[in-house]
């Protein structure tokens, strides 16, 4: 038996043991009634569903809580009894009041209909530790440490900005978001937002760090019931065989682009305003509990702390909330986003204009939300005019229904009319059905089926017919 074979055998046994462990854990937890051991809510002694329809998606109260800098709306620092005061700083006495953990991912998945057909047993691919809370009445913080496996990203540009080479890697470190949030209301109006601002303005809140501005959008990128399904690489050649399955509305959508650093940009990667977190500065304010205005700048597509082109990507978002009686609420949002020299095509920096809308309707236990995003590139090299499509569009709509205390049904449709290199590009249409079973508010197992309703081809956007997966989502 070769080393490689023995390694594969060990990996196989490890997966079997892991599977048994997970089944055991589920069986154990099944014996408990469905109730919450929430993460943030420990501090405020509230159930998960006070802020979430089900974690991680926020309901209207959760949005207001987040908007207020992780404080109960209209109060400053909420419940203080569990805090130690050191000067102006409120220090948590209970570590568990600022610490939370989330593990999510498929532990069995099967892609059929494409090339190659693939079946995987796996550990949850994403484990995150969250830390969040308030330092003072008007300064809050949030950061997460994340371990994510099988992340597909552009490979190092050793062959000089050549598109199409990717690598698969595991990441550990500061995760999607880490930021400080300052409530500027006190400076502008004399009192923190929570202390009954006379102007009925919550905020303005200034977020600095690695932020996810789309949390305030009517459809937030980083709060998905249908988690991203992993893509696939030919590890020998670095060619991508299947893109990561994400909400198409937020995706980059262009075939053939590289990031500012020359690394290939995956067509389904969530980018710009709709990235799940990037370096930048964000200001948002809510007026009269109904009208939100948000503006900010981001460093550039995953530019990290080192700015590639020293130009920023500004955005502005407006949102209107409505409803408030008869178990009904909703919102609509509009977005304008300018990617300033933010991506590259054949070594040329190009501009990226993104605009779109999102909407959300909640009635009783039904939650429907969707987004349509258009993208337009400019500043393209003149010799690409006939070979490159500079526009793209993505549309995602999802409906979730809590059919019982413990069962959540989700239906999502993704539609991408892609842009980019005409010889490479293809369109994508995916319909996903998912059933989640909640053993507790913070522990769910799910089964999903994502169907490619476009034709199946070798194009990485279309290279599967059916994805069936079973996975878990744990928050503690």
């Amino acid at each position, binding site marked *: 038996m070769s080393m490689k074979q023995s390694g594969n055998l060990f990996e196989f046994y490890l997966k079997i043991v892991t599977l048994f462990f997970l089944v055991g854990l589920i069986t154990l937890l099944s014996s408990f*009634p469905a109730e*919450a051991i929430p993460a943030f809510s420990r501090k405020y*002694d*509230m*159930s998960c*569903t*006070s802020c*979430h*329809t089900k974690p991680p998606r926020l*309901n*209207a*109260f959760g949005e*207001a809580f987040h908007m207020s800098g992780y404080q*109960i*709306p*209209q*109060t*400053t*620092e*909420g*419940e*203080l009894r569990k805090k130690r005061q050191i000067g102006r700083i409120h220090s948590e006495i209970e570590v568990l009041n600022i610490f939370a953990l989330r593990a999510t991912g498929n532990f069995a998945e099967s892609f059929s209909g494409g090339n190659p057909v693939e079946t995987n047993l796996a550990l949850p691919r994403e484990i995150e530790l969250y830390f969040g809370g308030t330092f003072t009445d008007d300064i809050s913080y949030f950061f997460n440490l994340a371990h994510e496996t099988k992340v597909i990203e552009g490979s190092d540009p050793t062959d000089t900005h050549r598109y199409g080479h990717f690598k698969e890697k595991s990441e550990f470190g500061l995760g999607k978001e880490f930021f400080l949030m300052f409530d500027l209301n006190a400076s502008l109006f004399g009192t923190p937002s*929570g202390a*009954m601002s006379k102007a*009925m303005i*919550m905020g303005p809140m200034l977020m600095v760090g690695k932020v996810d501005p789309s949390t305030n959008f009517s459809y937030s990128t980083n709060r998905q019931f249908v988690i991203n399904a992993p893509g696939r690489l030919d590890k020998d050649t670095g060619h991508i065989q299947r893109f990561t399955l994400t909400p198409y509305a937020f995706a980059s959508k262009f075939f053939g682009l590289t990031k500012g650093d020359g690394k290939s940009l995956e067509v389904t990667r969530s980018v710009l305003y709709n990235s799940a977190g990037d370096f930048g500065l964000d200001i948002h304010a809510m*007026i*009269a*509990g*109904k*009208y*939100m*205005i948000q503006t900010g700048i981001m460093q550039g597509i995953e530019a990290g702390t080192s700015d590639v082109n020293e130009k920023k990507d500004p955005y502005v978002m*407006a949102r*209107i909330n409505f*409803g*408030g*009686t*008869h*178990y*009904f*609420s909703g919102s609509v949002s*509009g977005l*304008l986003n300018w990617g300033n020299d933010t991506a590259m095509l054949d070594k040329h920096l190009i501009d990226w204009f993104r*605009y*779109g*809308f999102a909407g959300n309707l909640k009635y*009783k*236990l039904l939650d429907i939300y969707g987004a*349509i995003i*258009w993208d*337009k590139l400019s500043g393209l090299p003149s010799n690409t005019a006939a070979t490159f*499509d500079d*526009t793209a*569009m993505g549309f995602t709509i999802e409906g979730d229904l*809590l059919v*019982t*205390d413990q069962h959540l049904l989700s239906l999502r449709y993704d539609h991408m*009319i892609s842009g980019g290199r005409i010889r490479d590009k293809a*369109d994508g249409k995916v319909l996903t059905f998912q059933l989640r079973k909640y053993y507790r508010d913070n522990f769910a197992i799910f089964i999903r089926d994502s169907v490619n309703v476009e034709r199946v081809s070798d194009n990485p956007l279309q290279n599967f017919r059916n994805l069936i997966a079973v996975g878990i989502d744990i928050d503690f």
Partner: protein
Amino acid sequence: MDDTKSLFKQTGLLIFGILFLSSSPVQSQVMDHSSMNMEENEMKDRDKTDRMKDIQNMGDMKHTDTMAVMKGKMIFQMSCFLCHGRKGEGDGPVSMFIGPYSHPRPNNFTSGIFKFRSTESGDLPMLTDLMRTIREGIPGYMPSFRNLGEDGIKSVAMYIAKEFIQEELPTTTTIKYVKHHGPYTYSAKSAWRGSLLFKIMKCNECHGNDGKAGRMDLKDERSLMIHPVDLTRQETFGNGTSHEDIYRTIMTGLDGTPMPGYNDSFAGEEESAWDLVHFILSLQGR
């Protein structure tokens, strides 16, 4: 396909333009604030013109009350409405997520049914009862709003009373509250007597002989499933966990739930209710 994309693009730009031009936040703020601004302007005007009059009529609380109710309205319509609904009917956008298919749901203030009172079962609560719930919150479901301060808390309670209950709240209660001191403080003998009462008064039929309740399925006034409280877990006590809180819960019951008030049962022997309190405390090892 390009035509489709172009159509989408043009439609999108058109809608976006309309949204931004017609509903810019500044304009919306003015629109939405119109009623509130009128109230605020009225308040300011009144401040200017009536200040002297107010000083002369310090005993007349009506003006102060109006101000407090307005403040309460601002707080309620910025925060409380998310659960209780803008009209106080318990139908806010978050309401059903708190209790999707089971108890509890945010209270409908217009129904006249209040779980947490110090008054007789079936009566309206006193203002101080509303204030206590706002101040302390409900473990697991409603946050504490103590940081509103007593003025803020009272303002919200007054707004709820005026706007939604629309009846004069009682200022006293007919229930006799025996102070928890002297012979009525905790003793093993008192807890033992309480254990007898627990069975005589048939508390065990819902809460179980060991107080752990089990999974008995009952219904609340909205026909939502509700389970008896596990008396060994004080964190599940919605009406508070202090000795006095438990005494009050026993005497008043929890209207809207199957938990009756036992005030009549203890009539003339109210001090015996402390025995029951002590038994419950003993179940929690307190």
